């Protein structure tokens, strides 16, 4: 009788409501992956950071690919803890602009500077992710998904850039950096104008 009572109690135990729609249908981790892939403000800075880390050499690239995703995750947790918090869309434009310009000008930065930049960019974009992501399941899992994409993209891009030897390939990276910086400038213009 007692066992039956426990069974009934367990069956009636309220579960999480999951009122929000699952975007991907594969759970919170993939929602986080999809969120990052479908947010240009985020993947632009990931691409720019990967290119910059690669341009600055092996040591900087190795440090960045650890720090950047971890900072993204930590920023996301902080953002989720403070949510709902108003994060102005304009906040992402300067990071895209700064990292893009550094790639365009091919500045040889020390690993410490690259780590600091990775940390700042990761914390900022992660924070906005955490504060704005509408996830049906566990937020930390979604942030883990987003951070995994950050890690994978940074690793692939930085490794590719580090391995480049021909001069023209480095020029192509710089052109890509100038395009990213130009997008950042335009985004700043859009946002100062008050459009989305």
């Amino acid at each position, binding site marked *: 009788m007692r066992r039956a009572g426990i069974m009934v109690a367990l069956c009636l135990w309220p579960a999480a409501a999951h009122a929000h729609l699952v975007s991907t249908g594969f759970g919170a981790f993939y929602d986080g992956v999809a969120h990052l892939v*479908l947010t*240009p*403000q985020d993947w*632009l800075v990931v691409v720019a950071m990967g290119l910059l880390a690669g341009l600055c050499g092996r040591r900087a690239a190795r440090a960045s690919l650890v720090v950047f995703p971890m900072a993204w995750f930590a920023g996301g947790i902080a953002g989720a803890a403070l949510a709902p918090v108003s994060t102005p869309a304009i906040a992402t434009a300067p990071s895209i602009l700064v990292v893009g*310009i550094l790639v*365009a000008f091919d500045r040889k930065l020390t690993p410490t500077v690259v780590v600091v930049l990775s940390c700042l960019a990761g914390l900022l974009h992660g924070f906005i992710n955490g504060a704005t992501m509408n996830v049906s399941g566990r937020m930390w899992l979604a942030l883990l998904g987003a951070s995994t994409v950050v890690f994978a993209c940074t690793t692939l891009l930085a490794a590719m850039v580090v391995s480049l030897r021909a001069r*023209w390939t480095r*020029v192509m990276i*710089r*052109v890509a*950096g*100038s*395009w990213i*910086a*130009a*997008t*950042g*400038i*335009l*985004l*700043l*213009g*859009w*946002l*100062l*104008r008050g*459009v*989305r």
Partner: protein
Amino acid sequence: MRRTPLTFVILLALLAWPMAAGAHQETGSATGFLSGLHHPVSGWDHILAMVAVGLWGAQLGAPAVWALPVAFPMVMALGGALGLMGIALPGVEIGIAFSAMVLGTMVLGKVRPPLWVAGAIVGFFAIFHGHAHGTELPPNASAIMYSIGFVVGTGLLHAVGITIGLVQRWKPGDFVLRAAGFVVTAGGVYFLWAALR
């Protein structure tokens, strides 16, 4: 293919298939990107000037061949941002027409100024082009995707110019390149006439 009555029926059905009406205004990221990508190629004044930047860069060789296409999008975006913010710039259309004239003349005359002078000329005209794009933003487009498309479209036009500029490796190529410069200059004169009309 053996044509049977069934084939004709299928073909007829395909021909009669109703197309989407497309009456609603399109919105969203894809539209924003495509609008931005299309914008730099929507006017011959822009096309000629952007291609001329690539032609001149190719003619000047390294480092101008990559320095100009690296500098141009950033300065153009600055002009675009001014346009987006509603900051007026006088004589935009005249500036754009002059850009085609001047850049075309540089290619035609095979002018080789110092890199900073070439950069200053290209950067000065980039402001006008960016401003024109910035003030002609489409409604309901995604800001970031429009910006990406717009920058990529401009960069690809530079790439077209640089690719055409590769003809100078061959002896008649030098003449072809200078003839292209003449075409750009002539286009600039026409657009200046149209702007002043």
